[in-house]
């Protein structure tokens, strides 16, 4: 029996810039999957790994970032506590996240090589661009979310 809509966990919004970037990545890789071998199959393998990873990011890693503008204005309120369990989940999943990034890097490297072999600079360029996006998650996204959690806990005086 299908779950009712009310039973589904509510997905919170994410920063629009991130949503746009995700859609761009998925759109570009999907377009590459229509190309002949070796690019098409390599793009499909990368997409098969990246799509669920980005979906998980949209559920867990990215919603806390919507708090940034308010926090930057010095506004902190108890109704922001919703972000804390998500941030705890980000921290708990760091090792798994690293493994997924390694698998995606390997798939993107294969796509890059397929593009080079097929003399397809668009494919190689998209693969390299996606690798840069992964690095952005490690350098900016994840540390920022964790910092938001630490800040909220300090400001709200909670260990929850």
């Amino acid at each position, binding site marked *: 029996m299908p779950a009712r809509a009310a039973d589904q966990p509510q997905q919170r919004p994410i920063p629009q810039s991130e949503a746009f970037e995700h859609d761009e990545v998925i759109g570009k890789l999907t377009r590459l999957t229509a190309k002949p071998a070796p690019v098409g199959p390599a793009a499909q393998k990368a997409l098969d790994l990246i799509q669920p990873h980005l979906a998980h990011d949209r559920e867990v890693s990215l919603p806390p970032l919507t708090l940034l503008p308010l926090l930057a204005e010095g506004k902190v309120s108890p109704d922001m506590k919703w972000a804390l369990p998500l941030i705890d989940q980000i921290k708990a999943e760091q090792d798994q996240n*690293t493994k997924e*990034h*390694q*698998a*995606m*890097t*390997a798939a*993107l*490297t294969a796509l*890059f*090589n397929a593009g*080079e072999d097929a003399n397809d600079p668009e494919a*190689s360029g998209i*693969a*390299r661009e996606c*690798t*840069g996006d*992964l*690095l952005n998650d*490690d*350098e900016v996204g994840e540390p920022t979310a964790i910092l938001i959690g630490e800040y909220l806990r300090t400001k709200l005086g909670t260990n929850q």
Partner: protein
Amino acid sequence: MSDVRSGARRWLPVAVVAALLSMPFTAAWAGGDPDAGKQVFKQNCSICHSPLPGKVIVGPPLFGVVGRPTTSVPGYNYSPANAAAHLIWTPAQLDKYIENPQKIVPGTKMTFPGLPDSVPGNAEKRANLIAFLSTLK
């Protein structure tokens, strides 16, 4: 007699070092083929690293990497893990790192999974890659 023994004790470490230095060069990365290593570089590294000096892509350029310390490319924002590692990229150190980057520098932001020994042929690939990297100077 005691002079003989103390003399032997004094010279024993020197003799051991001399013997070690005279042993054949059998490190795993020795004797790599730089031409084959160029292909390994293209297939595994070139998505993020340039072999040219000063050209930063996603990772730092690997020109001159052999023998330089970690975090030594000006202007490149290394991970805190790499900054704290204080390693010199000797061929032996590179061999260990490329085999499993996260094991040698836990927390490195280089998400390349490595060329582990568990896959046949990877030790040779690493040796070839390091031989190629050694030519980048």
